């Protein structure tokens, strides 16, 4: 059995070698079709990953809920903020929520060596970097110990540091805080700026928010990252729990991440491209089938000769099928390689994935789909010629 398999592969390879011009011509279509399919699958997947990455940086991971908690009757005081914090800690512990963070956004004007530098100030907790995929390129992100730090630690983006005049490689560095009579903050880390940034960003811990300007208070919004499969239920339960703990506060919650929008924005485009590539693949397969059938008619004598050596119908069927499969696998591998090279080409990265901070990798699924489809096409296109080959009468074949 094993010998038969290897012998069939050797036979198939010999056939392909002997008829290489025919094989090459018939396989160009298959190779191009597999390349197109792999490109579509790969491109779609890379776009999805890239967009998901960007969406998660902007609005949190799948599934992030935002809780808006404030007392409608009065301004939020330090005491109110402490109560809210305690309630959130209780709920997080009760429902086993690992990641949640304050989320406040304000405009800040930071006095710099050559004038004030405007920046968006994000008031967050240490978990925020995980929830928003923020990886410091220099220095570090916040730790729990930083909450107690008397000199407020901040993480800045490279845009802000560039405007302020700090070399990110020289971190930590200090910056002056506005209106505090010489109070300084320490820049402990730097994250990359989005390509579309027009103003710098600063990240500060919620405990230190008031030190960045008079109008900047403790945040009233908090984000929680739930497991997607239980997100809706948890969202309701946590809201109820917070309302119970904070009877005077207005507690509202809503899903705030963009993951749900992903399918809506990419789905139709992916489907159209997929249909086009399947049509291309179908045409390639028809071309291969056509040439294979013509070739089998030309090879009837050869099949008869092989039958005289003792080749059984099964063996002839398997050999003809293997020829097709081996050929399309080779063509598919070339097509997949071409698709990967195209997807990895610098100009494609620059044009297609422009604006994404981290260009996505070529997905394994695209390579696997390309190779599996090429094998499948070979098997399908080889089926009809293989059946024709087994039905040849030996005597007629030898005399053909």
């Amino acid at each position, binding site marked *: 059995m094993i*010998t038969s398999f290897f012998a069939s592969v050797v036979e198939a390879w010999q056939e392909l070698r002997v008829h290489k011009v025919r094989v090459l011509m018939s396989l160009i279509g298959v190779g191009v079709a597999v390349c197109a399919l792999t490109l579509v699958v790969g491109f779609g997947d890379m776009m999805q990953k890239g967009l998901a990455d960007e969406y998660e940086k902007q609005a949190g991971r799948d599934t992030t809920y935002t809780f808006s908690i404030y007392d409608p009757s009065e301004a939020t005081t330090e005491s109110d903020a402490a109560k809210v914090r305690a309630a959130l800690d209780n709920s997080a512990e009760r429902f086993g929520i690992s990641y949640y963070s304050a989320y406040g956004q304000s405009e800040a004007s930071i006095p710099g060596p050559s004038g004030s530098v405007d920046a968006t100030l994000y008031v967050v907790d240490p978990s925020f970097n995980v929830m928003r995929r923020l990886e410091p390129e220099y220095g570090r992100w916040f730790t729990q110990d930083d909450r107690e730090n008397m000199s407020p630690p901040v993480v800045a983006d490279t845009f802000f540091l560039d405007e302020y005049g700090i070399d990110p490689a020289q971190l930590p560095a200090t910056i002056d805080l506005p209106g505090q009579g010489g109070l300084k903050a320490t820049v402990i880390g730097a994250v990359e700026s989005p390509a579309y940034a027009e103003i710098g960003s600063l990240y500060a811990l919620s405990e230190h928010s008031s030190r960045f300007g008079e109008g900047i208070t403790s945040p009233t919004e908090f984000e929680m990252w739930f497991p997607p499969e239980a997100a809706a239920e948890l969202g309701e339960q946590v809201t109820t729990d917070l309302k119970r703990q904070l009877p005077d506060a207005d507690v509202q919650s809503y899903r705030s991440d963009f993951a749900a929008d992903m399918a809506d924005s990419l789905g139709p485009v992916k489907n159209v491209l997929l249909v086009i590539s399947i049509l291309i693949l179908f045409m390639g397969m028809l071309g291969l089938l056509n040439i294979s059938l013509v070739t089998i008619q030309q090879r009837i004598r*050869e099949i008869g000769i092989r*039958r005289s*050596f003792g080749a059984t119908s099964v063996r002839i069927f398997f050999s003809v099928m293997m020829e097709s499969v081996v050929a399309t696998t080779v063509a598919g591998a070339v097509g997949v390689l071409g698709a990967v090279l195209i997807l990895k080409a610098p100009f494609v990265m620059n044009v297609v994935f422009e604006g994404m901070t981290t260009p996505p990798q070529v997905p394994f699924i695209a390579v696997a789909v390309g190779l599996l489809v090429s094998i499948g096409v070979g098997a399908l296109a080889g089926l009809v010629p293989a059946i024709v080959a087994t039905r040849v009468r030996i*005597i007629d074949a030898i005399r053909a």
Partner: protein
Amino acid sequence: MRPHSSQELSPQQEPLPSLLSLRHVSRSVPIGEGRILTILADINLEVGAGEHIGVVGRSGTGKSTLLNILGLLDAPTTGEMDFDGTPVQQIPRSTAARIRGRQIGFVFQQFNLLPGRTALENVEAPLMYGSGREFRNRRQIATEMLGRLGLGDRLDMKPNRLSGGEQQRVAIARALVRQPRLVLADEPTGALDVETGQQVMGILDGITRESGSALITITHDLSVAAMASRRFSLHRGQLHPVTADVAPEALAALAPPAEAVAGERP
């Protein structure tokens, strides 16, 4: 080979163990309108192991049909047939293919070499259907066989670069590479000139004797058939022995006419 209805071994011949036995074998085909054409009728034949047989006959007398039946490429319509003691007239095609691959070698008039393959690859081809050992050692076995046929310097030549005689020698090497017990040669010199044909026949006769294989040569050339130890004439679908000093045509003419006529389907 002993047609056992009318032929007996000569006193000089040693009885050989039977390799192939045909008893009342016939082959007929439908030709439309419920009529059938009998190509072979009442063939009785025994072939001993290592025996060399020559069958002569004109075109259209059923020579190739007989060879196809002997080589398990075709099945008789009626009658019984044993190969090495095993009834083979009704065996499945896959079993016939295995016996054919292991026990029978073919040499064709038109050589039937695989186009585009070298002489070595052509001789290797039957070993692809052999045992694991044969498959693994196919290159060495094929090289040795081609060397025995004087083609050691033509291993990598493709058929279109070989002369007719060389091509037929490659075909002989291919037929013998799995050491079959029976070699069937269908007009092996038909596509060769007289001198080359004699040389090729000499090689085929010699190498099959050397390897102990039985050889059945079907030909219209009396000089080729004359190299066999026993000869038969096929005339109108019936097999007749050719004895010394009697021309096959003359003998065939004496034989009762075969039913090579259309008749009602039974």
